[in-house]
């Protein structure tokens, strides 16, 4: 036991090095190497533990490897015949037993973490309950208790667990927010669960991690982690709020008219409209259009003019709009801001 501790002690600097190296890696709001939630933390700990074990094993292999290649290369003129060794039981037992031990060291935290991550919080009143539905190629977020429906941007309060129910409307997708925790698939005909929390406010990048068709690469979403007060405000806005009047009310009204004609079959606003596309009730508040474009006038117009050019294969099928119509729609859509 003491020997083992010494061993770990000697590994400590190595561990620090690895940790330092890894935590420096990538975009802090995207990378699994800079965990910002307890799930991601637990997973990162396992990653570090396994990397350390692997580095240890790899060092042994490489040291023997290098020594052997240098020491036993054939020298010119040496034509002696090496001893034909059959094997060595002692050595063979050693390199069977040690990996076993290392694997047990890895397996124990693996099992505890697996069960910790599988905890069911669906009936916990202190946990935010959310239903996530994957669509080709966008994410729908529903808060069943508050009756809120939105898309592309998921709000959760900081330091509070969220229990997430995962469903799919069409094919298999996978819900992944690397900085907050690992992924889980959304399977048609099945419901999966997952829990997450965030220890820091900020906007975290989420992505779809299962090939789901042409625009799988662009099926991004954002998790907005806000303070509890901000979160409560947001809920209040979404449930009871109304919209601020638009800057150019005339244009926006024209847009609303077009919207009622051509768009409402697929998009709902304030609970009225079809379910095929994202709910646009608070579209004006979103930072993105379709999860990937910046939500400004130009980009929104680009989306409305030719959605196919932005996201190949996406399911928003609309007739070609005239520039004027697009302007009106942009004005209208940007007026969908909750107060």
């Amino acid at each position, binding site marked *: 036991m003491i020997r083992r501790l010494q061993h770990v002690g000697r590994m400590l600097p190595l561990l620090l090095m690895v940790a330092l190296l890894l935590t420096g*890696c*990538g*975009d802090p709001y*995207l*990378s*699994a*190497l800079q965990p910002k939630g307890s799930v*991601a933390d637990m*997973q990162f700990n396992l*990653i570090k533990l*396994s990397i350390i074990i*692997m580095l240890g*094993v790899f060092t042994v*292999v*490489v040291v*023997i*490897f290098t020594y*052997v290649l240098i020491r*036993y*290369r*054939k020298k010119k003129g040496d034509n*002696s*015949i*090496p*001893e034909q*060794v*059959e*094997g060595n039981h002692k050595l*063979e037992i050693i*390199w*069977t037993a040690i*990996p076993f031990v290392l*694997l047990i060291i*890895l*397996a124990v935290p*693996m*099992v505890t973490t*697996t069960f910790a*991550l*599988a905890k069911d919080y669906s009936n916990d009143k202190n946990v935010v309950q959310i239903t996530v539905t994957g669509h080709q190629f966008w994410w729908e977020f529903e808060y069943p208790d508050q009756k809120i429906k939105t898309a592309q941007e998921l709000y959760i309060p900081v330091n509070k667990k969220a229990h997430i129910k995962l469903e799919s409307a*069409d*094919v298999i997708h*996978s819900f992944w927010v*690397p*900085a907050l*925790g*690992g*992924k*889980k698939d959304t399977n048609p005909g*099945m419901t*999966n669960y997952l829990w997450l929390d965030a220890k820091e406010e900020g906007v975290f*990048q989420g992505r779809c*991690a299962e*090939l789901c*068709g042409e*625009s*799988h*690469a662009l099926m991004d979403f954002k998790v907005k982690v806000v303070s509890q007060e901000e979160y409560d405000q947001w809920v209040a806005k979404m449930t009871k709020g109304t919209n601020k009047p638009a800057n150019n009310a005339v244009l926006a009204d024209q847009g609303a008219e077009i919207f009622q004609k051509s768009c409402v079959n697929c998009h709902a606003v304030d609970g009225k409209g079809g379910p095929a596309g994202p709910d646009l009730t608070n579209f004006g508040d979103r930072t993105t259009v379709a999860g*990937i474009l910046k939500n400004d006038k130009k980009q929104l117009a680009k989306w409305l003019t030719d959605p196919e050019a932005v996201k*190949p294969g996406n399911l928003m099928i609309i007739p070609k709009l005239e520039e004027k119509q697009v302007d009106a729609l942009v004005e209208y859509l940007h007026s969908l801001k909750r107060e």
Partner: protein
Amino acid sequence: MAQHVRPRNTGLWDWITTVDHKKIGILYLVAGGFFFLLGGLEALLMRLQLMYPEQNFFIGATFNELLTMHGTTMIFLAAMPLIFAVMNAVVPLQIGARDVAFPFVNSLGFWLFFSGGVLLNLSWFMGGAPEAGWTAYVPLSGMQFSKTTGVSFYVLGLQIAGIGTLIGGINFLVTIINMRAPGMTFMRMPMFTWTAFITSALILFAFPAITVGLVLLMFDRIFGAVFFNVASGGNVLLWQHLFWIFGHPEVYILILPAFGMISEVISTFAKKRLFGYSAMVFATIVIGFLGFMVWVHHMFTVGLGPVANSLFSIATMLIAVPTGIKIFNWLFTLWGGQIRFTAANLFAVGFIPTFTIGGMTGVMLSVAPADYQYQDSYFVVAHFHYVLVGGMMLGLFAAFYYWWPKMFGKMLNEAMGKWNFWLFFIGFHLTFFPQHFLGLMGMPRRVFTFMGGQQLELGNLISTWGAIIMGVGTLLFLVNVAYTHMKKQPQAPADPWDGRTLEWTIASPAPEYNFAQTPRVRGIDAFWIEKMAGNKGMTPAEPLGPIHMPSPSVLPFIMSIGFFIAGMGFVFNKYLFAIVGLGIVLICMFFRSYKDDEGFHIDVEEIKETEKGARL
């Protein structure tokens, strides 16, 4: 007994009708090599698209087609046949057999693989390639979401190629069980033959699962069945289970022969017998067996629950133990040896640390909760290219350099071989090492682009440059082959490397009948034993006599055309074609069964003549 005249065919006809395992080996090599280049080209195009953020060369469906075809081509149409190439060229020679157990079936196996491969690749020109990934997960691969005929091509191409692989596997099993030379007991078989044996067994038991999976998918897509249609009670996880019950053993099907090749090359060039031979055999068997018990590690994130995840996680980790035994046995084979760094040995030695890295990331992936982070990210892409390219492909290159003289009677150029190795090796690490980090930094796999400003640029750029260097390395191999075969050079000696096993006791290239007289085997490394005893060659186990050979047959080729036509018929719902195609197959089977092959004999004079001309 009627003396049948020996059929003399030359040129193309000879290649189409041959039932000689050595020629079939060459056919596999050429076809597999071609598909490797094709798959490599597809990889290069993908890497080009991912060189910088937000590029627009190949996006959307086109990129998905590229990645699906790259994966499918590489696994089924490049790796499998290249392994079969070496198995065909080497296994019968290593066990002292004159032929394989079922020469006809062997040739049928090749032609089925080839027609399946051609069918699959024709999809590019006939309405679009499959685009649901090499794993073809439903429902994305179902008719509802994949409306082109691409996935139908995938289903039928793989089905046909799969049947070919399956019967090829049975042929090798029976060959190894029944056709060994006197004295060649199981525990004296060369390591490569052992791995070929276990790989064939894995093929036998793994391929039926994918056959069933493909049948279900085909019925859904073509005949209106509803296996995967959730609204009618279907289940989408069923496909994943069937695919991975096959798919995981498949990766060991690919790596085990490479383990065997490495074992042969390393022990030859260290001038030592394989360290811990019996442990190596045992480890191979254990890996093969465990390989069937771990498939759920590809499904950790589908939501099977913590119990299943923990169990399969532990089962997966266990495979590290027998594999570790192998790694250390190779190191200790080198230990105390007289290591010669030929091109073949460079590849073999390069394999060891590279595969170790791939294996270790495998063990990292097997930790279920951590895999929630890795799954479907570039970390996984890095893992499997380390084992597939850094493992299997390096093993195959080692095998090519090592056995080329035995297959073709010419030695590949060593200097070029070394350049080939270094370019490929360095290019490989440049390509795939950064991908570990890309994955952990949040880059999913199977994406046609990534956004700027997320610190993913550098890794992707290096990766693409690495792929280009790897491509140059591959081209150098082709140049080497061309150079070797265009230049006039003496026939290679029978035993150019100071070999240890039976294949080096006969001429290079091996004569049609392999062994003029079946050798008597006295121990492991049979040839080496005779060399150490001061003997020139093996002691024969039989007097010189006429040798019976099977006659060539064009039926396998015609049958594969029948399958091809039937496949096309099913893809395009033209059942008349399907029936005609299957009819051709049945008629060929009828002919085969109706007309017994009596073969022909090579008489003693001719054998003596051939043996005299050989450079032993």
